[in-house]
């Protein structure tokens, strides 16, 4: 227990009042209900952003506390209670321990929300991959394919992808301006009747990008952009169209080198590589129901290459990254595996805090049980 100056005590302890927690926890429940129901119409990602991973949630012009604020209030109240308030400790050891556990759980949640990274690694059969795709963020990558032994990539992050921003880099002989940007895109073949503007290049010469309504689940969107390139030289300068997972890569030549343009999920490069030997799925006999999925991979790190197995409920852990069997893409020539990759700073907290809370509640139940369920003969 830390003693507090008398003056401050009143105000500080106010935050730790049980009433405040009671209302906060009730509000958190309302948020959870709303956030769950909203998933039906707006999809998980947006509902989560709106209700849970937010400080303020607007209903019309009325600001309401979002998930972060509510959990923050609970966290601060709990912290103050544990540090400064003596009423919790006297004779309530079990309760005190439980609350320490709850505090750790919230702390872990905070660390996860603030520092964890997650994404997907897609490995086609017999290929080696050393990067993770972000689930939501995009990047514009300009790849110089001229060096014989490697690709020289310059990537511009999601912050650049808005109309009017101009991207430049010393290694690039040209600059790129974003003319238009679409969160979700569709394209139509240009009508032959109207002559295309003369500066349209590549895909843009034959197709026109248009904005499409956003899909319910954010992952289903296919983003697209119209880019204007300057400084590549006559016949190369002009407007280019890009969208995610484009079947034909857009390229241009400048200074005798070939550059490829890609709008793709932002990549995080890992300090090691995974090579897919085989992806295997097993069905329950005589049904179309999956029994298990697994990927046999080799992990290549620091000159050592070792075999590893990733399957449902059995992830691969390496250097703080964890790889989970998440999905697959079927192909007659061999299935591509999709692994979920997570690096989470708060990962151990739920384990520790659940053990602490378990101990706390058991201690409390042991103290309380005889009082609560009293044998009739004893009364």
């Amino acid at each position, binding site marked *: 227990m830390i003693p507090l100056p008398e003056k401050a005590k009143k105000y500080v302890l106010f935050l730790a*009042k*049980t*009433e405040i*927690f*009671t209302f906060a*926890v*009730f509000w*958190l*429940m309302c948020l*959870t*209900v709303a*956030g*769950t*129901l909203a*998933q*039906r119409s707006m999809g*998980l990602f947006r*509902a989560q952003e709106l209700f*849970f991973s937010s400080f303020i949630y607007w209903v019309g012009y009325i600001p309401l506390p979002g998930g972060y604020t509510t959990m923050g209030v609970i966290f601060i109240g709990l912290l103050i209670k544990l540090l400064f308030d003596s009423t919790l400790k006297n004779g309530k050891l079990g309760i005190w321990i439980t609350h320490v556990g709850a505090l750790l*759980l919230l702390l*872990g*949640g905070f660390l*996860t929300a603030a520092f964890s990274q*997650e994404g997907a690694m897609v490995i086609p059969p017999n290929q080696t991959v050393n990067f993770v795709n972000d689930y939501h963020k995009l990047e514009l990558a300009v790849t110089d394919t001229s060096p014989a032994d490697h690709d020289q990539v310059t990537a511009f992050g999601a912050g650049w992808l808005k109309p009017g921003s101009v991207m430049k880099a010393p290694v690039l002989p040209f600059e790129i301006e974003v003319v238009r940007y679409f969160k979700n895109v569709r394209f139509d073949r240009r009508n032959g009747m109207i002559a295309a503007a003369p500066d349209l290049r590549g895909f843009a010469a034959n197709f026109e990008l248009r904005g499409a309504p956003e899909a319910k689940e954010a992952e289903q969107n296919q983003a697209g952009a119209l880019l204007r390139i300057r400084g590549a030289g006559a016949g190369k300068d002009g407007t280019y169209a890009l969208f995610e997972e484009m079947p034909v890569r857009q390229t241009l030549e400048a200074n005798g080198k070939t550059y490829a343009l890609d709008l793709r999920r932002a990549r995080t490069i890992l300090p090691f590589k995974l090579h897919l030997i085989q992806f295997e799925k097993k069905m*329950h*006999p*005589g*049904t179309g*129901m*999956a*029994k*298990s*999925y697994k990927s046999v991979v080799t992990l290549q790190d620091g000159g050592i290459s070792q075999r590893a197995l990733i399957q*449902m*409920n059995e*992830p691969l852990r390496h250097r703080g990254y*964890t790889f*989970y069997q*998440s999905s697959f893409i079927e192909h007659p020539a061999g299935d591509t595996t999709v692994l*979920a990759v*997570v690096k*989470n700073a*708060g*990962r151990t907290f*739920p*384990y520790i*805090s*659940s053990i602490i*809370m*378990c101990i706390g*509640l058991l201690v409390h*139940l042991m103290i*309380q*049980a005889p*009082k*609560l*369920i*009293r*044998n*009739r003969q004893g009364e």
Partner: protein
Amino acid sequence: MKRLLSSILLLSSVVAAASPTPDFTFKELGLVPMLHEGRIKPLDTFARIHLLAFYGRSKLPDQSAMQWLAELLFDESRAYDRRVFNVSDYAVVEALGLERTEGHKYSFYELTQGFQSQAETFSQLLNKKEEERTSVQNHMVEVYEKYLRYLEISRSFSVFLPQFEVSSPKLALALTVQPGERLSFRDLMKRKQFEEGIRRLVTSKGAGLTDDEKRELAELSIRYDRAQRDVQTEIFRIIPPQWQHASDLWLAPTALMGSGLGSPESTQYLNLWKGLYEAYHSGDGRKWNETSARILVESQQHAAKVISPWKIRLENAYNRFDFFTYSLALYIASFLALAFSWMIWPQALARWSFGLLAAGGVFHLAGMVMRVVIMGRPPVATLYESIIFVGLTAVVFGLVLERMRRNGLGTLIGAVSGAILQFMGTRYETSGDTMGMLVAVLNTNFWLATHVVTITIGYGSCFVGGVLGHVYLLSRIFKPKDQAKADEVSRNIVGVSLVSLFFTMFGTILGGIWADQSWGRFWGWDPKENGALWIVLWLLFLLHARLCGIVGKIGMAVGMVLTNVIVALAWFGVNLLNVGLHSYGFTSNIATNLALFCGAEILFSIVTYAMAKQKEQLLDKDESLRKGIVQT
């Protein structure tokens, strides 16, 4: 679709069967193993789940499930005429243009006529997605799917059965068969001339044939077409994995023929089944019994590598004893005994009601343990199992409470929650095999044993708290002066809510840890996760609100009643959202029942809260009056 339907009316066997005599036994045949929906199970289970699906119960008024299955396999015409399909939705009956019948039962032939008259509508319906159809339309499609399933089962042996007979000598000559010779499709496949003959005659539109001969030709051609399609029938997988092929796939008789995977052993085994058919048709009970005994011995030998016979026997026993129905009956009896104990012979009847509850619990537990042994996995993985398990938890809680307090409260809790949940369980059995296989992510015994069991115990405990809440509120209204007893219940409510918090919270955290272990995030705001969180937050809210005086004893009791609503929503409600990882086991009538339950509980809460508060005020007034009198 039209072709399919018109061919069905011709399907009945050429030979009229004798009906099986009472000396036919079906026990041995019921023990024969087969593969169905990815699981090896006895034929008896197969028969029961299908009869449950078609008829709504696992036996017919005059037939056991196995008798029915035998009839369906070996005597189509009778089976097609039997009213086995339960179509309880009048809208569907009307849409099919059928007459309303007593008991909502229809035969296969009746449905065929219905589908035939509405063929157009159905082909349109089948092209639509489930979400695009109305609930009546979905029921219609459901009936149609069951109908096709029925057909498929009935055709399991068709290619081996002598269903072709040419009576006209002229036709027989053209098709190179003897007039009056009975042939199976398997026989005909070896005679290329037969198929060619039919093709030729049909293309020439039966030139030179009489009308009778034309009709016979048309019938033969339809039969032949149908039989060709029957080769794809694969539901009745009774042939154990063929030893020369290292696979765990069982084959249906017809598929075996199509795939060319047969072996001398499998041929011999199938010949036994053919013998069984002959015995059935000739009404020869002795032969039937002998053959089915031999089939059992052979099948167990062949399947010995993949399943041990005692597991099959155990499942058969599980089916026959029907533990859960007994336990339901015992719970109801226990409740009745308890109710009467409030009027007459309080002590004796109270003891009886406790005994009945305990007996019910033993049956319940026995059924549960048998399931665990048969499936080789922890008790809860599906919605059905969670219902059964929550029921058992509540009964155990009730028994423990009763042992400690001996005032009938524990028995009441156990009997009421046990009976309600067991009854709900029986409603779920009709949806298919309750011991179905699990999808990949659930295929882990450790997490099923920890997370799922913990959270379902939490549900059970919440349910107990809910019943206590009802008891408290009612006693405050009807016996407002018996403060001591009510206080006792109130203390129990707090205790139970703590226990509930313990289990739901750890269940939820364990779920998070499972998620962290399996797909890399502790918490993903998935609806089912959120549902579990509602309960935890609600209980936290209640306990802390009580601590700082926001709610009193009555408020706490109302809160526990509402916990029932929240548990129900978290348990069943989120499945209705149809999003996320956990949306298993959706059935459309849950929605109505759930709404009714929640509405009733909320109404109960409001009414009893108002009444209890009013009684409390009156009591306070009395008290202060009395005090006033004493003072003056």
